[in-house]
């Protein structure tokens, strides 16, 4: 067993920022080997070349969530990314490092995460066990399969990468964002928790504001899959006593998608739109479509797929 090493000179271009000077690009030349993580590259730049460079890093093993940044435009943990792998992936030994998007830059690669933490606190990120358990009078037992399922969503390391890359967070101030939903679901689904109803109030409306773009799924360094947590949270809607307009629209939309596929095996967008938003809402939007000459696309009539009976069997769960 001998590890194959290789060495290479790379140019790391860091997008720097200061409140006085604004932002500028600065280049650092560095020799790295096959095993050099970006956190180590940054440490070496700071101790050997330029002590003024600012970044966050702590554990260098992808459990503390400090070192989120953009590497060649990709949202990544610096510690979980090897320099040479990036060179190979992009076919260039020039690599850019930038701060995460969305959050306000503070200095160089350091951003202000207050917005992220506020999102997390909104979902009451802690277990509320029963009094008997807290007093030690009763014991929790947890099935191994429940433990495994919950642990998947409990592994969020608060790095902020998912929020930085989520388009819905930017467009919809009422959307809690992916990390908070993963955290919220981890407690919502925990059989040991006692405030389920309150959690539903916090999470359900927001869950229907996600657009399922899967950016959080793509960038999460711990494979938490916030989007899966959001899907599972939506399933709690049927228990909700009061439903917000967003939830009602969402439920109608889901039902409409189901019906469209059940009838034709296809997603008939005009029909789905009509069922989701109702006649008046749809008419208003149709006027816009008419004005922009796109109405004909909305009114395309879909023929059912062959073997539609097979599709219906699947949908019925047969």
């Amino acid at each position, binding site marked *: 067993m001998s590890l194959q090493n290789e060495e290479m000179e790379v140019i790391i271009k860091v997008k720097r920022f200061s409140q006085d000077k604004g932002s500028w690009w600065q280049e650092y030349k560095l020799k790295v080997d096959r095993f050099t993580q970006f956190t180590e590259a940054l440490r070496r730049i700071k101790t050997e070349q330029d002590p003024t460079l600012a970044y966050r890093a702590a554990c260098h*093993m992808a459990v503390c969530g400090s070192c989120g940044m953009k590497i060649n435009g990709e949202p990544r943990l610096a510690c979980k990314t090897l320099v040479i792998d990036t060179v190979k992936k992009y076919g260039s030994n020039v690599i850019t490092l930038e701060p995460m998007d969305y959050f306000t830059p503070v200095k160089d690669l350091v951003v202000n995460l207050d917005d992220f933490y506020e999102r997390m606190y909104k979902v009451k990120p802690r*277990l509320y066990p029963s009094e008997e358990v807290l007093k030690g009078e009763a014991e929790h037992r947890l099935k191994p399969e429940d433990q495994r399922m919950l642990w998947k969503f409990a592994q969020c390391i608060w790095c902020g990468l998912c929020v930085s890359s989520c388009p819905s967070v930017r467009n919809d101030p009422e959307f809690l964002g992916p990390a908070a939903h993963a955290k919220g679901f981890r407690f919502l689904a925990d059989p040991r928790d006692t405030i389920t109803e309150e959690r539903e109030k916090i999470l359900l409306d927001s869950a229907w504001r996600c657009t399922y773009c899967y950016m959080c799924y793509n960038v999460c360094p711990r494979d938490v899959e916030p989007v899966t947590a959001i899907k599972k949270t939506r399933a709690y809607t049927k228990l909700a006593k009061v439903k917000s307009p967003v939830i009602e629209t969402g439920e109608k939309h889901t039902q409409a998608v189901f019906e469209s596929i059940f009838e034709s095996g296809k997603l008939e967008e005009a029909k789905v739109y009509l069922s989701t938003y109702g006649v008046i809402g749809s008419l208003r939007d149709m006027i816009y479509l008419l004005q922009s000459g796109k109405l004909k696309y909305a009114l395309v009539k879909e023929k059912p797929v062959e073997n539609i009976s097979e599709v219906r069997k699947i949908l019925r769960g047969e």
Partner: protein
Amino acid sequence: MEKVNYDVVVVGAGLAGLMASHEIASAGYSVAVISKVFPTRSHSSSAEGGIAAYIEGNSDPNDNPDYMAYDTIKGGDYLVDQDAAELLSYKSGEIVRTLESWGTLFNRQPDGRVAVRYFGGQTYPRTRFVGDKTGMALLHTVYERTSGLGKVDFYFEWFAWELIRDDSRVRGVVAFDMRNMVPVFFKAKAVVMASGGMGMLYKHSTNSYINTGDGYAMALRARVALKDPEFVQFHPTALYPSDILISEAARGEGGILRNNKGERFMARYAPKKLDLAPRDIASRAILTEVKEGRGFPGGYVGLDLTHLGEEYIKERLALAYEAAKSFAGIDATKEMIPVRPAQHYYMGGIDVDITGRNPDLIGLFAAGEAACVSVHGANRLGSNSLLETLVFGRETGRAVVEFLRSYSEPSSDIDKEAEKAEQTAYDVVKRESGVHFGEVVNKLREVMWEDVGVFRTEDGMKNAVSEIMKLRDMAKDTYVLDKSKVYNTEFYNALEMKNMLDLALVIAVTALNRKESRGAHYRLDYPKRDDENWLKHTIAYLRGNTVEITYKPVKMTKWKPEERVY
């Protein structure tokens, strides 16, 4: 300088600091927690394998807390205070149950009870775990719980710099807001140092970049002693070459160490315990294999998990599998993981008793890796550090509450002291030329690794002491190039460097002074343990450039020292 008042200031937001804060705030006192990082970034998150606990009704039927205390004492090569080891063992089950009730997702047995596995040096399996991210799971739980109290003020990304004291008691902490370099004097009736370890003193370490020994140095400068500072633990299985921890759980679950001939070489060093020998023994065994030509080129051995099966590895040793894959390009289900020892833990620390109270300074407490209680003695058993942070974090919190109940207001004015502390920090910024922190720190880390590492000799350590002295001289001329006040990490790195140098000197001098081998302190020139002369705790003060050493007896209850064989 701005001043704020709290009943208690806790330095550090890892498991020990949060647990102490939880206890103090729950009793109704005001608490400020000062941390260089957001609490979930603390180094506790990196602890992997598990937390040891004897749980009534959920342990091996032959086991009991006395065996657990015995294993800890023997593992620590009899430098352990036995009352502390007993307290740790007897409270272990209860603390795990508390954490479970707060939401920690411990791995389960099929019947729903908390699962268990073996760790090095345990007579019976006692390690409770959450995959191999136990530290992270516990840290998140305690942070979530403590922040939920709504009574603790978290000052995260604040740099605690100096303890402020009067003649006899602690009066607070001077800390800087890292966002803008503004110093604040946190006045307090009591201070808990829970500032974690010091791995950055060593070139090879499994620790976080933030572990620069700040708390030890703050204590030393406040004329407070460190206990047993010469005892530095090396973990046998750090991933080559990145030094990322490959949890001891890998050996606990059946992983085997092999040399370049494929031999299970631990049979030579610990014929009974084999790969489950404690860390000091396994670390020396690996380096001996390498030195005698049975390692792989570059200086490492193999950790073989392949016989455990893919599914088992990926569930129970997920992080080890992922680290080997991401950082060494090794598929641990098919190949051996390349490992070598690296600095891992600091057994030494701020001298405290089993309530966390420091004898030098009234109102000063310490817990977790920052403290030396001492439950680890000369060598810590795996799974005991997470346990220590929680048990002694809580004990310390309770002792602080007791202390506050009988507290009387001092009359002396100490604002001048706080201003002096601010000045000593700013001195590094004001200089116009000199050396940068990086030059000093890189050199220091090499010296410590080479000369105050796994194997130690008189000559090596003498060399280390003189090198550290030179670096301390050099450090008088360090300056900060970055003149901005916003998130000036260079300024804090320079302060960390000062802390590292203060601590390094104490480690090197006390190690040179202890003329025997015990646990992690292994001297080639004195290879035997010498109970007659050295069964005692080192107590070290730093006065300028001088390290003053005295000794203190080890507390014995039930167990007489015996030869340590595995």
